[in-house]
């Protein structure tokens, strides 16, 4: 593909990044910063779903469970075994990867709606395990007092993560890393394989692609990212209940991703931004909040079937058609 050094897309990306970085400076209230942090955490879940669903076409409804599993593994490691964040973080990631492998191997053999339903089933199993492992997870009472990352000592300066601002930057840092991983996947041969599998798995096999292997690897990577998102959520919020692993989380992430634009990098953050902001603005009208929220979703999907990013791309093409063709 052509180098897009100064394309509008690149400039918008830089502008968006700058905005994300200065958010703590311009947020006058703690609530605004909290909202921004929550949006970043949702974005992590959306992007992990985007890798397996947006790129590979495998609609997993287990991602709420995987998010919660990562959060709970981290929570148990730090509260029961007093392991430090920086050690528990990769451990929880690896654990979610293994859970993803165990879920992926049987369920990825299935296609279409069967895969969706089996992953949903696995999510329910994960919640049941969390509910019933009372000695470790606290069951329905939840897990409380989960600490965040400790201080990183350094020769000249120490990084500590006590303030909300520092936690925001920590989460933003990992989000940028995850985005990079997602971009690397899309921009590689396995990304091409995933796009091909999304279209026609039989044809992929007939040219010699081990589609099962491609899907399992991708599912595991996606699980790890969802789990790490869960870890950051747990360390930020400090309290976990089995609801944090519910399949509703996965559904919400799916809705956000659909609104943002399935298979798009920017869509993974635009979706959560729009849906969470709509939901917050509607707090004023509590009685009809869910109704309006649902209506907004229906209208968005009808008029922008490819999500916000798809809609913007369409408008851009309409307005600047000649320039669009030149790039």
């Amino acid at each position: 593909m052509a180098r897009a050094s100064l394309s509008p897309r690149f400039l918008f990306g830089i502008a968006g990044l700058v905005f994300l970085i200065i958010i703590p400076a311009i947020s006058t209230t703690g609530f605004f910063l909290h909202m921004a942090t929550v949006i970043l955490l949702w974005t992590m879940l959306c992007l992990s779903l985007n890798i397996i669903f947006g790129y590979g076409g495998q609609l997993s409804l287990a991602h709420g469970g995987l998010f919660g599993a990562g959060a709970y593994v981290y929570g148990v490691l730090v509260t029961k075994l007093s392991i430090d964040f920086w050690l528990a973080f990769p451990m929880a990631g690896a654990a979610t990867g293994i859970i993803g492998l165990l879920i992926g191997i049987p369920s990825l053999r299935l296609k279409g709606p069967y895969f969706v339903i089996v992953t949903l089933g696995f999510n329910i199993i994960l919640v049941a395990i969390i509910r019933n492992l009372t000695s470790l997870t606290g069951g329905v009472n939840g897990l409380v007092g989960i600490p965040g990352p400790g201080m990183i000592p350094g020769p000249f300066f120490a990084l500590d993560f006590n303030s909300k601002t520092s936690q925001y930057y920590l989460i933003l840092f990992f989000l940028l890393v995850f985005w990079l991983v997602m971009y690397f996947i899309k921009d590689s041969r396995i990304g091409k394989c995933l796009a091909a599998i999304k279209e026609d798995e039989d044809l992929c096999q007939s040219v010699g692609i081990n589609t099962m292997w491609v899907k399992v690897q991708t599912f595991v990577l996606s699980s790890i990212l969802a789990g790490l998102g869960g870890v950051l959520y747990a360390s930020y919020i400090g309290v976990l209940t089995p609801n944090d692993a519910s399949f509703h989380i996965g559904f919400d992430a799916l809705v956000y991703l659909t609104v943002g634009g399935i298979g798009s990098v920017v869509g993974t953050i635009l979706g959560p931004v729009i849906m969470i902001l709509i939901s917050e603005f509607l707090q004023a009208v509590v009685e009809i909040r869910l109704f309006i929220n649902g209506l907004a979703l229906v209208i968005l999907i009808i008029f922008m079937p490819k999500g916000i990013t798809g809609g913007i791309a369409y408008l851009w093409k309409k307005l600047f058609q000649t320039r669009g063709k030149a790039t």
Partner: protein
Amino acid sequence: MEETFSNSGKGDLMVSRGKGMLLTVRNLIKEFGGLQAINNLSFEVNEGEILGIIGPNGAGKSTLFNLLTGVLSPTDGEIIFDEKLVTGLPTHVLAQRGIARTFQTTKIFMDQTVLNNIVIGVVPKTKYSVWNAIMSRRKMKREEDGLLKRCEGVIRFIDLEKKANNFAGELGQEEKKRLAIGIAMSTEPKLLLLDEPTGGINIEEINHLMGIIRKIWSKGITICLIEHKMKMVMELCERIIVLNYGTKIAEGTPQEVRHNEAAIKAYLGEEYAA
């Protein structure tokens, strides 16, 4: 015809061009519930020949291709490819061993460019794991040029170089068929299975496609061809087998099959046979 004929044990005709057998099918059986789709089928494909497989609808031709490519696994019987037993191996392994195919329903990746369609065929011979995508990005990018060269060669071969950057969904029917053959060719196969390559296109375009099939054959690639257009099969193939109800009812050169009573009966009905 320069081929010499010799009678094998079962009385089957064999064409020998001084090369060995590429594919041997022995007593192949495939049952779907009570239905026998393939019934005790045995035949050979010699290296470098074009074998035509004909038969009425439902004779088991496409089922045979699905068995040969591992999409279905046989109820019983053996498939020997390139001197190795390959019965029951998964599709992608058979593809890597050198069996490529096209589908009756012209499968291509509609939402991708022609070039990307071909790239997918080349990828399986390279490393394509998640690990490589993240950890050895630079190295992968460096290999890209070589891959693209190979793809461009394939695109030139199927005469689509002017449309390399078009989306496959925008192509005409015959161009789609050529692209499907191109995807199969990009895997550098030893055996190419073509399932009705000229279904639903006009006579002029058929000639173009036949030219490409001849070009593939002249590269030394063995071809099995399912086709309903008799004229085309008779012109292209050196040898034809006729299937009906999953069994082989006739085999031989086009001239021999043309006058074979069983074959005529299967196609035209009892009254034409005499």
